[in-house]
């Protein structure tokens, strides 16, 4: 089929939206800004839908060259876009969830200053994210990769008058630079070995040359992992994501939960051909993912800020996706990416609705009893909580179970990874239900005057007091309601409802074969991420190192006999674990609310460790940031910059000045002294000419 899909239009529409809103939005009336932004998100979604409907008639992968970008010697990079199953899945997630969050933001940001700025950045983000997903070579992907980082930075620092937001934006950007550095090195290695950055050429070459293995592929893969770790907030570079919650909540939902942070997972799945050749890199990915999943879940258990709980939950769930990629179960990783996009976007948006209804309050300790007051938010949130906790038949159960199953049947330390993953699932269930109970159940713990403050803030906003007067600009208050706690407007609730439905049924497309399903999703995705067949020896090596499993790739086909029973048993176990987490949360935060405090005081050290997030920020501050700042401040700035460079320049200047001052005395204004100098030197010249000693030192 040779029809032109015009893939290039998909990213360019949001770019146009960004340009229009960014250049003219400040003066434009709000409805026009809204319309431009929504069209910028809607057209890509419609185009993706159109592609979806004719997808089966396409020859894949569909590659479209728009033009030459760089042509330097033998190296070429094109503006080229690629469409295959993996791209399509990502496109659906990015445009679908992206559009819903745009709609939601219309309600959420309605009262904010900088409304146009927000939507311009959101469209810019969509542009870069779609470029990242559609790119056919590493370089174009890197443009999107950097661009989403830029959009993320701009949106985290959206409330730029607040110091913490500006700092969080910088932190995200700088930490991501470390990952980008890895990505760049990987690209340099690829250029030096393959002379190109095109996906199709590199992957074909790797596939066609079984002898290509070991050293440099591992190096490339590990550098790519470094990039993915930075972007997807894994250990050790996850520290920026919790701080990124300083941005508006729709941003957290879109960028820091559903799409951008999954770019690392997408990149690993996209470059799986390289990873398949490098057991070491795969093992690294699996270990990083598992460790991050567990670590972040433990921190998430004790956070009190509703968005920070969700942030650590995101880090933890991304860890699951890494775990899946690490055991070469790319379809499971991407599947979890999709379902996670549904329920985590929903969780963030619902949390945003809660925050909205409480006029900017984010601390769960002063929430409570919201179930009756904001019923629609409550029910959608409930769907998401059950989904992420892994209760059948919701989306999170299906995808998480697939990952755990793939980890279980992976050779080597797969069982250990499975066990930690299972434990993490229990923790996930616990902290999600803790959030659920603390927010929606029990008595309202709002301080007595809290509602009055909320009402007062509303009143203040209504009189259009400028942002600058507010000591804590942020998502403070909205609407013209005179009362405190209120349900959000419908434009915010509809996206919640749609996402809630997707969170419930979204997993059914990948219902595992062991439970009577067809795992349609995995079969759909398989052509794009199926591992190349390895030579026998290499497979043996891979199996003995225990990180790569061809069995895991092909799922049930080559898995050990009786895998269906294993799958069922594992599903039952993980459901029980999820129930246990629920029960623990129920006990501690509903039936016996005094229990958490007692446990916190009896396990003081452990609680403090979790509460302070293992002091990772402090450790990084002391080990990395402080020495760098010290070097920057005292060596580079004080010594090199001000001492050597400034000093050298000043020395030159002062020398010229001093010499000039000395020589200037000759210009006395006294004509006879001028004549005297002239006569003196004329006499000298004559003398040397006559006596001839000058002849010896004037070079001929």
């Amino acid at each position: 089929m040779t029809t032109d899909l015009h893939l290039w239009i998909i990213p360019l529409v949001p770019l146009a939206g960004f340009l229009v809103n960014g250049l003219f939005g400040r003066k434009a009336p709000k409805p026009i800004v809204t319309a431009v932004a929504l069209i910028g998100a809607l057209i890509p979604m419609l185009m993706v839908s159109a592609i979806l409907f004719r997808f089966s008639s396409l020859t894949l992968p569909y590659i479209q060259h728009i033009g030459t970008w760089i042509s330097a010697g033998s190296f070429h990079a094109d503006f080229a876009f690629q469409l295959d199953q993996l791209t399509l899945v990502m496109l659906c997630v990015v445009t679908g969830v992206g559009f819903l969050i745009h709609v939601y933001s219309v309600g959420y940001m309605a009262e904010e200053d900088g409304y146009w700025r927000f939507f311009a950045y959101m469209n810019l983000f969509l542009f870069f994210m779609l470029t990242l997903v559609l790119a056919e070579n590493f370089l174009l992907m890197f443009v999107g990769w950097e661009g989403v980082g830029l959009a993320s930075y701009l949106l985290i620092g959206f409330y730029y008058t607040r110091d913490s937001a500006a700092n969080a934006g910088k932190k995200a950007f700088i930490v991501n630079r470390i990952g980008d550095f890895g990505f760049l090195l990987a690209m340099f290695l690829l250029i030096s070995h393959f002379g190109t950055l095109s996906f199709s050429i590199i992957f074909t070459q790797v596939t066609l040359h079984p002898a290509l293995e070991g050293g440099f592929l591992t190096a490339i893969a590990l550098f790519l992992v470094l990039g993915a770790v930075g972007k997807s907030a894994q250990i050790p570079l996850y520290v920026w994501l919790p701080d990124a919650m300083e941005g508006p909540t729709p941003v957290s939902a879109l960028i820091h939960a559903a799409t951008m942070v999954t770019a690392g997972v997408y990149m690993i799945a996209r470059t799986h051909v390289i990873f398949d050749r490098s057991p070491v890199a795969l093992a690294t990915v699996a270990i990083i993912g598992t460790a991050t999943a567990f670590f972040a879940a433990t921190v998430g258990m004790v956070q009190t800020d509703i968005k920070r709980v969700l942030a650590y939950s995101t880090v933890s769930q991304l860890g699951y996706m890494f775990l899946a990629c690490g055991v070469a179960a790319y379809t499971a990783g991407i599947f979890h990416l999709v379902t996670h996009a549904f329920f985590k976007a929903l969780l963030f948006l619902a949390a945003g609705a809660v925050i909205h209804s409480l006029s900017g309050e984010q601390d769960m300790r002063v929430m409570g009893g919201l179930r009756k007051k904001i019923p629609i938010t409550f029910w959608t949130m409930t769907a998401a909580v059950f989904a992420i906790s892994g209760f059948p038949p919701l989306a999170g159960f299906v995808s998480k179970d697939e990952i755990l199953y793939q980890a279980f049947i992976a050779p080597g330390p797969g069982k250990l990874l499975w066990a930690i993953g299972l434990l993490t699932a229990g923790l996930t269930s616990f902290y999600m239900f803790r959030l659920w109970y603390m927010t929606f159940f029990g008595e309202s713990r709002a301080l007595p005057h809290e509602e009055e403050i909320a009402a007062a803030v509303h009143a203040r906003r209504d009189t259009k007091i400028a942002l600058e007067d507010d000591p804590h600009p942020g998502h403070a208050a909205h609407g013209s309601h005179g009362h405190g706690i209120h349900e959000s407007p419908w434009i915010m609730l509809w996206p919640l409802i749609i996402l809630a439905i997707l969170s419930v049924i979204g997993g059914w497309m990948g219902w595992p074969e062991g439970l009577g399903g067809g795992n349609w999703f995995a079969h759909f995705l398989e052509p794009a991420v199926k591992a190349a067949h390895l030579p026998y020896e290499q497979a043996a090596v891979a199996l003995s190192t225990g990180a790569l499993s061809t069995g895991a790739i092909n799922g049930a086909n080559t898995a050990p006999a009786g895998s269906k029973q294993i799958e069922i048993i594992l599903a039952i176990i993980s459901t029980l674990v999820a129930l246990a987490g629920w029960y623990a949360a129920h006990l501690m935060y509903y039936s016996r609310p005094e229990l958490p405090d007692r446990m916190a005081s009896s396990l003081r050290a452990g609680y403090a460790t979790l509460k302070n997030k293992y002091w990772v920020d402090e450790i990084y501050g002391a080990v990395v940031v402080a020495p760098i700042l010290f070097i920057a401040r005292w060596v580079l700035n004080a010594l090199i910059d001000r001492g050597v460079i400034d000093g050298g320049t000043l020395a030159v200047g002062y020398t010229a000045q001093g010499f000039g001052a000395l020589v200037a005395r000759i210009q006395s204004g006294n004509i006879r002294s001028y004549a005297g100098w002239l006569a003196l030197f004329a006499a000298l010249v004559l003398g040397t000419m006559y006596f001839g000693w000058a002849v010896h030192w004037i070079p001929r």
Partner: protein
Amino acid sequence: MVPISWYLVLSAILFSIGVAAFLIKRNIITVFMSIELMLNAVNLTFVAFAHQWHQVSGQIFVFFVMVVAAAEAAVGLAIIIAVFRARSTLNVDQIDLMKL
């Protein structure tokens, strides 16, 4: 026949007197006259050499020098009058505004 060296010695003496007068004298008119003295010392050398080598170009040069000296005298005297009107003095040590 008077040897050329005599002319040259005389010229050197005249030139040196001109230089010394230029450096020593404070009255601007005297300074001006010492310049004329130096120019004419040079003229004497020109004429002497022209005579010695039987070449007319030296004599021609003397005319040029005279013309330039006459022009310089005209301009210079005009400047001296202007300075005197402005400063009411002809002492060069007091006319020293052109400095840093």
